[in-house]
């Protein structure tokens, strides 16, 4: 069905809704229109999709090549089953309503939104509600991620054969503190550090395990804006055996051994 099947004034009204610029009177008109022609909601979806395609018009600009690896380090779930199960149970525990709402078809959501909007007097309010609702769902998603991380962390902490190596800042970052938790059962190590200083784009922090005098590369990371790192990495044999860990600042490429100054150290 094409937009041109509708009168132009209707199209403008729908476009105005999608752009969030309807006046009070137009909101009333729009509500009336939807009541009389519910199928018009499809056109709203298409206009929204059209608007969302605008970024495809942007010119080439490439992120730094290492961004892919940095994202890969934090955005690939480690253990499929455990992660999914925890995520599901957390969903149910923390936000059953979020789970339900995800199953409600779009049209119903739209009606619900519009229903709330009916009482409002300004166009900004109706758009604002949509935005807030969206923000709220995103906030719930973010909170769930946080919760999931902590839940996993707690599960790891509870295993009996765990050991922890504390890390202390030195050199350029004396204020940094943190630890590496080694969980052999889960074949995982968890790196948790605070107060790291920001470093240039082309560098990252790197964790080395010292085994028989050799320094072995175990993990590479960059802190968030607050200087924190909370990272789960697969447990390699070096990290499993080692009693001494050091952290240096290195270029973002394969380094056979550390070249930068030592900024944190930990020993059992």
């Amino acid at each position: 069905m094409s937009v041109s099947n509708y009168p132009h004034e209707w199209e403008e009204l729908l476009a105005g809704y999608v752009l969030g610029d309807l006046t009070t009177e137009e909101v009333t008109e729009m509500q009336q229109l939807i009541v009389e022609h519910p199928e018009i909601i499809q056109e709203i979806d298409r206009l929204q999709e059209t608007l969302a395609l605008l970024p495809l018009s942007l010119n080439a600009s490439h992120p730094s090549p290492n961004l892919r690896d940095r994202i890969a380090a934090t955005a690939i779930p480690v253990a499929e089953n455990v992660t999914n199960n925890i995520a599901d149970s957390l969903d149910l525990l923390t936000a059953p309503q979020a789970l339900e709402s995800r199953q409600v078809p779009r049209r119903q959501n739209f009606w619900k939104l519009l229903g709330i909007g009916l009482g409002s007097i300004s166009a900004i309010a109706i758009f604002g509600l949509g935005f807030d609702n969206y923000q709220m769902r995103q906030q719930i998603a973010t909170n769930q991620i946080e919760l999931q991380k902590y839940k996993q962390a707690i599960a790891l902490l509870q295993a009996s054969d765990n050991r922890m190596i504390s890390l202390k800042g030195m050199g350029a970052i004396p204020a940094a503190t943190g630890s590496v938790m080694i969980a052999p059962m889960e074949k995982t190590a968890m790196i948790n550090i605070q107060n790291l200083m920001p470093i240039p784009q082309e560098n990252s922090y790197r964790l080395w395990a010292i085994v028989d005098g050799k320094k072995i590369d175990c993990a590479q990371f960059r802190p968030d804006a607050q200087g924190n790192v909370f990272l789960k990495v697969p447990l390699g044999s070096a990290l499993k055996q080692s009693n001494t860990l050091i952290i240096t600042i290195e270029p973002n490429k394969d380094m056979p051994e550390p070249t930068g100054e030592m900024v944190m150290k930990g020993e059992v």
Partner: protein
Amino acid sequence: MKISEQTDVEVLQAWRSGSSQAFGIFYDRYGELVYRLSLRILGNLQEAEDLTQEIFILLSRDTNYDSKRGSIAAFLSVLTRSRAIDRIRKTRSQQQHLQKWEQSISSDHDTSNSSLMENASLSERSEKVKAALADLPDKHRQVLEMAYFDGLSQTEIAKALDTPLGTVKSWARNGLIRLRESLKDSLE
């Protein structure tokens, strides 16, 4: 079937199940789209990379993406734009924001070829969107871009362009309608 031939939704699922190969494919298809939009809105390389990372982390864990509701490209755009504009609102005053707009908006539109992504269908769509935008009257395109990429309200746009609000609205609405018509085939 090879994973590189699978649909976006299948690749996304494989990635969420822990496949680093699937992550790589997904990133190669959409990483640049997210990055470009982030960079366009935030105007800062570091922030754009941070936001790109944030979006991918979100996507890896939990999202409300539903393929029935639209394409992954559109979903990522909405999510990225919303987060980017949120950051801007938090960190910048509207004044600085307007200045950024004045410096950057005019230079941004260009229909020259660029390989947007390794994924052919997406780069094809990119060309279509570029062509459709280039086809709009200048003012229509300009107000749409100001509203979308700079998060400006129609009132702010009217002020910046020294044009009556009603005219700005009409440009934006008709721009969008016309764009929707040109892109009709890409939307099905």
